[in-house]
């Protein structure tokens, strides 16, 4: 069985998604909804990372339960930079790019959960299936957030 590999891959991609959300949050500190919501939902990915690490042991993979984090200094720097350019229109384009990136990352994570759920079902791994059923909807919500935010923000950025 290669379930351990799939868990390891998800652990990596969820970590990546959490970091992408936090970095976007910092970069768009002056866009308050992105700043706060991206932080709120990064927590879902961090929670998934912990849960994957916990269940990984059952499948022979040793994973760090602590979500990877940006060094605080870098986050602070990004927030300061965001405030410095908050009165200019250029960050709008950067935000669209960031949201697009998050959407793609989340889509990847979503596929990973789907694969894991199917495999868990095939191998009759109840606990693993339950984990996928609990986490996957949150990934979809992260994706829909990026999509919805893109839809709401893009017109003003592109036509102004």
């Amino acid at each position, binding site marked *: 069985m290669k379930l351990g590999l799939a868990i390891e891959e998800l652990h990596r991609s969820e970590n990546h998604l959490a970091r992408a959300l936090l970095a976007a949050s910092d970069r768009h500190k002056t866009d308050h*909804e992105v700043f706060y*919501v991206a932080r709120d*939902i990064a927590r879902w990915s961090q929670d998934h990372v912990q849960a994957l690490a916990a269940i990984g042991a059952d499948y022979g993979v040793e994973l760090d339960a602590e979500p990877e984090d940006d060094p605080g200094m870098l986050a602070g720097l990004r927030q300061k930079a965001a405030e410095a350019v*908050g*009165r200019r229109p250029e960050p709008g384009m950067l935000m669209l790019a960031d949201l697009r990136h998050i959407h793609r990352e989340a889509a990847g994570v979503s596929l990973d959960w789907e694969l894991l759920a199917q495999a868990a079902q095939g191998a009759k791994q109840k606990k693993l299936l339950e984990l996928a059923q609990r986490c996957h909807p949150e990934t979809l919500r992260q994706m*829909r*957030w990026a999509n*919805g935010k893109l839809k709401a923000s893009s017109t003003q950025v592109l036509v*102004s």
Partner: protein
Amino acid sequence: MQIDRIAEPWGTRTPYGPGEDWPTRVDTHLTDGVAAEDVDRWVQSATILHSNGDGLDIAVKDGEIVGVRGRAEDRVNHGRLGPKDLFGWQANKSPDRLTKPLIRRNGELVETDWDTAMDAVAGRAKELLAEQGPSAISFYTTGQLFLEEYYTLGLIAHGGIGTNHVDGNTRLCTATAAAALKESFGCDGQPGSYTDIDHADVIALFGHNMAETQTVLWTRVLDRLAGPNPPQVICVDPRETPVARAATVHLAPRPGTNVMLMNALLHEVIANGWVDEEYVQAHAVGFAELQQRVADYPPELAAQICDVPVEQIREAARIVGTAERLMSSVLQGFYQSHQATAAAVQVNNLHIIRGMLGKPGCGLLQMNGQPTAQNTRECGADGDLPAFRNWSNEQHVKDLAKVWNLDPMQIPHWSPPTHAMEMFRYAEEGSIRFMWVQATNPAVSLPELGRIREVLAQERLFLVVQDIFLSETAQLADVVLPAATWGEKTGTFTNVDRTVHISDKAVEPPGEARPDLDIFIDFSRRMDLQDKDGQPLVKWSTPEEAFEGWKECTRGRPCDYTGLSYEKLRGGSGIQWPCNEENPDGTEHIYVDGQFWSAPDYCESYGRDLVTGAPVSPVEYKALNPTGKAVLKAVEYLPPHEVVSQDFPFQLITGRTLYHFHTRTKTARAPQLQKAAPEVWVELSASDAADRGFTEGDLLEISTPRGRVEARLRISGIRPGVAFLPFHYGYWDEPSGHEPDGKRGRAANELTLTDWDPASKQPIFKTAAARVERLEKSTGQPSAAPTTTASRPVSGDVPPTVGGPAASATEELTTVSGGTR
């Protein structure tokens, strides 16, 4: 009987029992020296300094307003009026009224004529449309104009200019009410009716200090409490409000933990089997998910997070869980707090799972704060499409385009409307370059004022302010348009329980001030806005014609006005919509027998994710709710975004007092009201004050990373760890004019943070971390906070708030048993 209505805000009790008619009590206040028989004319209207919509008559003598009298025949108030209504009308004749348009020349606002002012407004709008398009233009309106004016504004902005940037200050007050109703019932529109108070055996007020925000409605509750078989009252509020003092159970949770508390209440209701399973089965979707979600929220957990005794949570749950006729109301304690929509939706969930909808006594009100906020929402002046049409339903957009005789492409519907906070963000980054503010004062009422002042003062932003006084915001404008107000123009408006009132013109506006409707139509003509046949876009020039236009727009929609007319609204009581051929006398209860407006092709909204705010797609909604049931939405608790720390150990909440409305532009110009609450104060609990050696009346500095405010201390019954500031006080009556004089201000919003609920986009005013330090010890003088309200002092040494002879009002009680109606 003469009563000091500053000292006795709710007046004399007229007790009544369940199912009985609320007795009539007619309240009158006339200016000194005028008796009722001296009055030339009584002109029909309703109250405008809160959302209750109490019917009143304006007394006119020698062409001037001389007082007001409650309308005995009105279903809403049965003759009663609140202190703001009895005295607030005096602001109309304040010498400070704007009487001529102003225009900025060489940095100064100078008087000009209407042509020059309107040409400047239309000229700049045309320039920007040519240069950038509609994305440069925005309208920020209010909850205080009339229905006809909002509808015309919505038509001009959406249909004429084609901009998506239209919102009202209702974003700060009732956006969550609308959002919560859309989430649960697919549509705005209040399920409850004020008459539910007459029947309820339990009245639950969630973050709603009804005693101060809707004094007459609270009078109705007090009269039930004084009568036989009184209802039990549940109060959720961190302050010891008059509601809390009357409550059977008062839950005072930590600010920012409402969802935790609500989930625990639902947990108990479900775990104890108090669910109306038949109703849920027949009329709701989403129960399994709700059950699963709240299973994780036992009262013990909530007790810890909310810091509320677990027995109180259980007792409150038992009372709402076993109520036979549960009436609930929700307001700013939920709407302006963290996870606003999520928390308000849980109150809807409580009513749905208990089957407490569409029957006498089973009312649910997602309360409004302003007199005409319901119309801002209905008419589309908050950015939504008129008559609760769904912007993401192509058919609805086509239908509206037909009513307006426009190409559907002309009506912006590519994404959700731009909400107020986003508009200020766009203005900040420079893509909105024209903002037209009407009857609202963002330079005092929005969060983080330092930022807002900077945005409004930008050279590159063309700011138009339409108001009746030179507010803090008006002082920053490029053009100021003097408007007529209530009593000086005719129109209609709708209160929170869907009651429509007419408000007739009683007197002439001062100087050259004009009705808002006339200003909008003038703008439309100068812009030469046309329909698709080249005819003028706005096809009316009087309020009554506008109302007739609106009626057509509402035909077949939930807020159906087609059965109403100016004639029908004159002479009697206000009438509740829907009012049409089937319901010619209006409709007291909607959602009778579980019939909702939530079918996918009819609903106003498909809803949003309550955590992320992402809109639900039409396809998802159809799958979730194919046959138009109520939607039970479960949500997890999230910790607040700003938490207390060693440097900022207090949780700061802002709010209102009974005697003032908004930024006091009217109430401070009514001497009785101003005297009752003359200056800002800060409230702390007795234990917090004792820990720091503070005493009543000490001058304190309250600060957050955003700013500093100074205020005198009132030691009140507020929960420990929380500081309260009223948000009414700005700078227009201070020497500095529109901003703090020196490093400390007095506007609470110097301190609040820029953050909003992702679903309703309502800013959060009740979750900031603050520091409190003493600047000066009191010399024995207490703070000037009212003693009759939530700011009641804990010590007995503070003289009580009284109004004296100037605040005397007449009460005529009906003694006939069983009431007069």
